[in-house]
């Protein structure tokens, strides 16, 4: 099923789709673009390259209360949080959905599945938007990411000559387009334009890198690479394939809630145990953990490097200690010199 809509009519479409549940789409917030719930008059921006933060928080929220507790005398009562409501994610670029596929492997395919994540995935209808042109930090070409096609999306969309062409890929996507009714015109005669999107070439040597890293836990590269790291954790915050979380209680002795929230392996307390022992006590160990997880540990379990070349860490790291720097230091020009 293909449909088409003129861009000036999009606010009407937003309004219609938002009746299904919160509609998240790229919204201009001052200097940055973020996925935000649409509301009347929102300054949407479909022409943006990647948003500042990936939309992973739709499935793994920054903060998610999953139970309330009440204590009365010696009794403890546990009250599970309400079911999650349906949502629509509109305008996500393919690389972010390649990353969601990687999170799915951990959160849905690996036993036991994470029901909180799974329900949000199942209750969200996704409209992916193909990329028109990359920004200078995009390097998805290195990771077999096709900027024109998105895996697992319910609807594929493309901006085309002042219109948006939409094609349903799943039943969920079909239902979404049907919801819009007469707002959408028949697009069966339209074709998706073939576009070559050429991203930055950082000369990354990725073939065999996971295998190569198996014996490089003590490599001298790690003694140098971490030195500029400030431990701010922004790389994990903006990374679409980072998924670590914390679980905490908030409340008092009579009642409160238990929630989980994003956490970061770049923080010292992350692995610090009661009694003070810390298996990853310094920045060197933590920087090594993060890059080894992306480049060696995740690939060993799931068969692919946990990076999609979205470029957010290149944009965000205050000291340029991004994954491109790490891959170059580990396997770029230095590999022959080792």
């Amino acid at each position, binding site marked *: 099923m293909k449909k088409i809509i003129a861009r000036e009519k999009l606010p009407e479409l937003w309004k219609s789709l938002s009746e299904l549940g919160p509609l998240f789409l790229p919204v201009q917030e001052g200097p940055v673009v973020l996925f935000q719930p649409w509301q009347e008059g929102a300054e949407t921006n479909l022409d943006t390259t990647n948003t500042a933060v990936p939309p992973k928080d739709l499935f793994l929220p920054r903060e998610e209360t*999953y*139970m309330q*507790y009440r*204590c009365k005398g*010696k*009794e*403890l*009562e*546990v009250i*599970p949080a309400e079911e999650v409501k349906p949502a629509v994610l509109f305008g996500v670029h393919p690389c972010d959905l390649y990353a969601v596929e990687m999170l799915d492997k*951990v*959160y849905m395919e*690996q036993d*036991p*599945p*994470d*029901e*909180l994540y799974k329900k949000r995935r199942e209750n969200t209808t996704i409209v992916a938007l193909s990329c028109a042109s990359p920004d200078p930090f995009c390097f998805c070409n290195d990771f077999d990411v096709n900027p024109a096609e998105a895996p697992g999306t319910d609807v594929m969309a493309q901006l085309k000559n002042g219109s948006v062409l939409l094609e349903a890929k799943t039943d969920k996507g079909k239902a979404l387009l049907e919801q819009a009714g007469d707002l959408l015109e028949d697009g069966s005669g339209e074709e998706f334009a073939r576009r070559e999107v050429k991203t930055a070439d950082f000369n990354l040597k990725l073939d065999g890198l996971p295998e190569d890293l198996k014996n490089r*836990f003590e490599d001298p590269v790690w003694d140098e690479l971490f030195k500029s790291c400030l431990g701010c954790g922004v790389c994990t915050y903006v990374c679409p394939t980072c*998924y*670590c*979380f*914390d*679980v*905490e*209680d*908030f*409340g*008092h*002795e009579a009642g*409160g809630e*238990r929630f*989980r929230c994003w*956490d970061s*392996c770049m923080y010292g307390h*992350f*692995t*610090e*145990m*009661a*009694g003070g*022992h810390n*298996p*990853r006590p310094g920045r060197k*160990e933590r920087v090594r*953990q993060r890059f*080894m*997880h992306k480049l*060696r*540990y995740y690939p*060993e*379990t799931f068969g692919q490097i946990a990076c999609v070349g979205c470029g957010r860490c290149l944009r965000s790291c205050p000291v340029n200690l991004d994954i491109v720097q790490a891959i170059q230091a580990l396997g770029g020009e230095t590999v022959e010199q080792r």
Partner: protein
Amino acid sequence: MSSVNVLLPQQATILDITEETPDIKTLRVVGKEGLPFDFMPGQCAMLSIPPVGEAIFSITSSPTCRECLEFSIKDVGKVSSALHSVVPGQQIGIRGPYGNGFPVDEMKGKDLLFIGGGIGLAPLRSLIGYCFAHREDYGKIDIVYGARSPADLIRKSEVQESWAEEPDTDVHLTVDAEFPGWDKNVGFVPTYVSDLGFKPENKIAITCGPPIMIKFVLQALEKLNFTPDQVITTLEMRMKCGVGKCGRCNLGPVYVCKDGPVFTLEELNALPAEY
């Protein structure tokens, strides 16, 4: 059950509390109807006490005990400290079981050498109880157990009376220094293991204790010609989820909470030494 959020705890009730040492208590815990879940020796459970939070503890009772779960808990952190203040009848949160447990089937037909230090006896005790309940499946059992002082040994009467009376079983106790009234061995656990001169033939050694003790026990076992596949230990890491997702106990390609906490020395040697 697949649609249940695995992070949700169930209610459990404290049956009673035993003060083992000045900083270790054993809690006996029961679910709504008997055991909260079935488990194998070496597996762990997440205990929680709001609003302090959750932490992971090894189950110290044997799965053959159908009455309750037991946890021997040392007061070292926020949650363990809160658990030291519970009273009988109080409800706490529990979820689990987590982890792989000891390879009880692979150990069949072997002689077993248990080496524990201090609170490190807790996970071993679950396996020891299991082996006694399936006595005909296992050969000679030696238990070396030590602590700083006689007052720091846990489950004293059980270790000295019940275990020592089991068939084909020897219990070897040691404390770090001389104490009035102490007539057993004096010396560190690794030294005592060397002195006892265990032979590695058809034997599996299972050890748990403070990291420094484990380090020297492994050296002692190597000198006694135990090979890495004959040595088993169980690791402790900070954990939040217990199901291999939150990232804290990630060690190379494994997650200690689901792929461990029990590893042979051979398996550990293949992982980054970051525990």
